[in-house]
């Protein structure tokens, strides 16, 4: 792993870090969206069942 890092320029390492952060944010956003979708659908269905 360290050997692979050594082949990268400082700028390339910064780019890789930014890509990693973007992937983390994207994954986090996807999890949040699926969670929100589930909660909204449950609330809509429960509300619909009660009416």
């Amino acid at each position, binding site marked *: 792993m360290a050997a692979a890092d050594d082949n*990268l*320029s400082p*700028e*390339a390492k910064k*780019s*890789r870090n*930014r*890509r990693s*952060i*973007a992937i983390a944010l994207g994954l986090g956003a*996807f999890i949040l*969206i*699926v969670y*929100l*979708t*589930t909660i*909204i*659908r449950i609330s*809509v269905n429960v509300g619909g069942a009660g009416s």
Partner: protein
Amino acid sequence: MNNKSAAEPGHYFALLKPRVMSLVIFTAFVGMMAAVAGGSSLHPGLAAISILAIAVGAGASGALNMWWDADIDAVMARTALRPIPTGFIHKSEAAGFGLLLSGLSVALLGLASNYVAAALLAFTIFFYVVIYSMWLKRSTPQNIVIGGAAGALPPVVAWAAASGTAPLNAWILFAIIFLWTPPHFWALALYREGDYARAGVPMMPNVAGEESTKRQILIYSIVLVLAGLAPFATGLGGPFYLAVSSAFGAGFIMLAWRVFTAPPRSKDAAKSLFAFSIIYLFAVFAALLAEDLWTLYGRS
């Protein structure tokens, strides 16, 4: 060139064709609001997530298109600076990225709305990537005529997301974008003819010739403007829509006529039509949206 290790998140975002995505978001939103104004109901949060899923699905098909067309993108001035030709992203990464987002967007749309909409989105991606990019684009000058169906489907997908069905009015929106695509892209091809010929893409001007292309642009423009009046006939649009569609339709035909009568090799008229075609599509969809918003909120 190998800029791969310097790839930024922005390069991946560029794979999604953000300008195409913005048009997809807009037309899908209009389709969804038309369905809601017509009596369908969808939770605002689920509506927003559905539009996001449709936009990501469109972006995913853009990434897969860039993967498949990397060779021709590299020789066309308009596309040479895309992330794959410039070496920032490897083809296989674009393919993986596009496939991943395709799967996630279809699954998310199914979760947020219904499986009819999800199936339509999956079909849209399949049509754009396999039917248009892989098959038609390099084999026939009718490529963008038939392939235009993929770009025309987002309002139908969004209508289905809101209602679970795709009624006639949804397909009228489809028809407007479908008929708009040939004059829009052929106008572009008229002044980018060398680009497409260099890449070996059989666009109408470099296969059938300039005169035939101009004639077909005029015919499609007339049919498009007539289709643009159809929403008024079915009740999807009201008097305001009729006025906007008629006025901008008259402008469209006038510019198509200017292209038709322009001297050979003259590019100005084609550039004007290309620019106006974008304004036309925005205007007719914005008019529908304005009437739908008035129906939903303006009368209370």
